[in-house]
């Protein structure tokens, strides 16, 4: 891998920015060059939220993700908005609990996971984002026990240290499904 561009998208409150930050930190811990750029403004107040993350072996040029290699769509408006932007040969991860339609593109790989349903079935209803993160890491061959543990420690503040374990559970649930 030289450069991989991610776009995380969904409703504000689904942990879109957090998931992106986790992936960026994991890259940083693995000595990659990284950038994280959120959409900001009215979009964050109840509308769609998204963030672009770039993980690269070289210094990151433009931090703006127009054509992601990996799209994570956690709601229908996000899939509608970004499906056509995914780079040819790219991958789409979607939350099939909230997105009923199929992906129309035929030149991309799709992983559909009922993440929101899985999250509430397992007693951590707010962690659908991390279930998808687990799936992403597994499918990209980036599941690495050590660095993901270290990245969790970076994104979860000491005050919420009790959330570490449940986040890890959510990641593993996604990775093993």
């Amino acid at each position, binding site marked *: 891998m030289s450069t991989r561009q991610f776009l995380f998208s969904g409703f504000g409150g689904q942990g879109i920015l957090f998931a992106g*930050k986790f992936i*960026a*930190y994991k890259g*940083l*811990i693995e*000595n990659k*060059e*990284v*950038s*994280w*750029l*959120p959409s*900001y*403004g*009215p979009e964050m107040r109840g509308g769609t939220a998204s963030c672009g993350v770039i993980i690269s072996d070289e210094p*990151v*040029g*433009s*931090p*703006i993700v*127009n054509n992601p290699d990996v799209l994570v769509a956690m709601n229908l408006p996000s899939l509608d908005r970004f499906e056509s932007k995914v780079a040819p040969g790219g991958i789409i991860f979607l939350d099939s609990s909230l997105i009923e339609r199929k992906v129309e593109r035929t030149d991309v790989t799709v992983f559909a996971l009922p993440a929101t349903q899985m999250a509430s079935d397992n007693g951590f209803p707010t962690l659908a984002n991390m279930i998808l993160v687990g799936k992403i890491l597994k499918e990209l061959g980036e599941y690495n026990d050590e660095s993901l543990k270290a990245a969790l420690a*970076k994104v979860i503040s000491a005050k919420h240290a009790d959330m570490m374990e449940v986040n890890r559970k959510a990641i593993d649930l996604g990775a093993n499904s």
Partner: protein
Amino acid sequence: MADKVLMKGNEAIAEAAIKAGCRHYFGYPITPQTEVAAYMAKRMPKIGGTFLQAESEIAAINMVYGVASAGLRAMTSSSSPGISLKGEGISYLAGADLPALVVNVQRGGPGLGGIQPSQSDYFQATRGGGHGDYHLIVLAPSSVQEMAELTVKGFELADKYRMTAMILADGTMGQMMEPVDLNFDIKPAPEKPWATTGTKMQRKHNVVNSLSLIPEELEKLNIARFERYDLVKKNETMYEEYMMDDAEIAIAAFGIAARVSKNAVKEARKRGIKAGLIRPITLWPFPDAPFKKAAEHVKEFISVELSMGQMIEDVRLASECKVKVSLCNRVGGMIPSPEQVLDAIVKASK
């Protein structure tokens, strides 16, 4: 990675300012720079500093004037419409020769405009912004690391030349997170014998003032100030050149536009087009030298901007209009894509 943390550009500015010894921050919230104020609000009380959300931008800049008069490092931050409100105070800072740091995380304008990134305050920043003959030292970061480093640099230059420095960033630079290493050397602030620190009955009063009613004296002050500006031009101009040695097409871009342009230059090179990039880091003083030199071997400059074309005037001046200078831009909160810049390069190469 050892010492690197992921931080937003706005947070990096705030933390770097604290590291540079700034203990007085005055601001008023406005997107997309609010994280500077939020960070200061959290940190300043813990380190014995002052965070104050003023009743307005105008109040905030005048509080900066007060602290700077007392010889301490002070800063304020805002975004475009808020910087316009500060304009009067900035002019007063210049008139009183006060060192301070003003941060502008630009958004689209004019008027209230929008909240997405823009570079359309270039004229305001580099030509003064307020009334009267003066300049600010204008620093244009292009990464989160530079947001931090140029903040420290801004305080140092401000003290060294008794000028107000400005960080001219944009919404992207403020909002994005990148790894930052904050372990840099900070030089202690110089002595400020002119500051109003109290005479303790040991010396004459120091006076900090921008009012001078005798024309002969005001003229002298202006001329002396511009002699100092000449020193800044001579000593402090900063820029980065990328693949310029054999370039036939040269991009001029700063901040986020330079990041986008670098992608385009790389792609152009892959296609066999000799493209390069000159990235001004100080916008005032503008780096004339690399443009003058490049004008000897490039056939076209392309100024890539998030404005209707403002820096392009300085590119023309610096290159003495010897070769064509064209504009490649998006405005209103839009950002040029690498493909758009590449198209402009390809067009220029034909």
